């Protein structure tokens, strides 16, 4: 899937403020974990979400856009994906 304006990379230089490891969680676990971290964070914080749930690839970008936050990067790893989300 292609997400407009978002870099899909193998590695990134963005420094996350926090990392949420939701690997192993089934949907909607990873998205809810991300929402929780954004809720707890400050404006400008970058949350790195690690997920191996297929659905996160659509859920996460959809929610980030809906909530007006910024998805900077999607980093592909062998068995999981990392999403870099900045709180608005």
């Amino acid at each position, binding site marked *: 899937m292609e997400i407009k304006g978002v870099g899909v990379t193998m590695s990134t230089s963005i420094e996350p403020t926090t990392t949420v490891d939701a690997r192993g969680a089934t949907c909607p676990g990873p998205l809810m974990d991300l929402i929780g971290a954004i809720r707890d964070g400050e404006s400008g914080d970058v949350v790195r979400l690690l997920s191996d749930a297929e659905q996160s690839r659509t*859920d996460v970008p959809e929610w980030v856009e809906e*909530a007006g936050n910024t998805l900077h990067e999607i980093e592909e790893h062998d068995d999981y994906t990392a999403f870099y989300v900045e709180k608005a």
Partner: protein
Amino acid sequence: MTDDIVIIGGGTGGAVLANDLAERLDDEIDAGEVRVRLLNDGPDHVYKPVWLYVPFGKREPADGRRPLRELIDNRIEIEDTRVTEIDTDAKQLQTTTDATPIGYDHLVVGTGSTLASDEVPGLQEGGHDFYSEDGSLALREELLSFTEGHLVLSVIGSPHMCPAAPLEFSFMTDDWFRKRGLREDIEITYTYPIQRVHGNAQIAEWARPLLEERDITIETFFNAESVEPDEGVLTSMEGTELDYDLLVAIPPHRGVDIIEDAGLGDRGWVDVDKHTLEAEHAEDVYALGDAAATGVPKAGSVAHYQAGTIGQRLASEVRGQVPTAAYDGKTICFIETGMDSASFVEFDYQNPPSPIAPSQSIHWSKLAYNESYWLTARGLI
């Protein structure tokens, strides 16, 4: 040498497990080889599903309370105490009543969920809930005299107890107001944090048309950020504002602090292997029910099935055998779809749910299940 098994929490999981062990290990307990202790912070066992019916005046909180001593086999030692610290290295517990720590060989954590309404500013003052005894009574005060206006049911916390309950409450209020000829004057809105109306895709697909048929307004991608009690406004992180006259919230949930303090998992949920239910960060510790982070719903049926798995595993362990019993993710759930109809789902790690067509007979089954719960807690069914 005696094997000391200690269970923290005398809720659904802890009670069913205690009775399971009494039966399974009866010879060992009688011979003094095994000692089972159940620690609960109160003398009563509380059956929470009753609270769904309290706001409608159909049940009293007292219907969901029984003294633990009446439900638990006499061979189990029950202590009315609160555990304040778990030391998994020394394998001992601090409590509010014992001066010396309580040691264990095998620990089972069944401490359940607590509500964390304070995580959303204004929610405690502006919102109601049916997820606590006090909350369901306060909501009854409002609901029985509610005859017009906007009722908002907002699912804020996830994970939360009984994922079906917010849908049930919405269907029940719709039906209840309709039967009383008030529905025209009452608007009902249902909000959910993600893009579906329920965390589980199959249940969401089944529930959405039912909500639409009943003119229940749906707001998805709605994560409540704050409540203005004076103005009656609920605002989401996504920037949506809802005016309400009666706000019924499913508050954020947490487990108890001792779990995080002991390094067993975040927010009070114990990280476990989802099949063996063994804690990932400590030896000889199991968790069950709401306290176990397995990814399956926080439901009494889950706690019940998990108790069977842990009972078998502990029996193997005290007999020096390799434990092989595993939890398969089994969950069953009745879903009220009105005041006198209900559906039913059953699923596990492999098989997704497929809700069956609502009927009156399933509603009666749910009520019968609630009545017979006291036999379940006793370990009889």
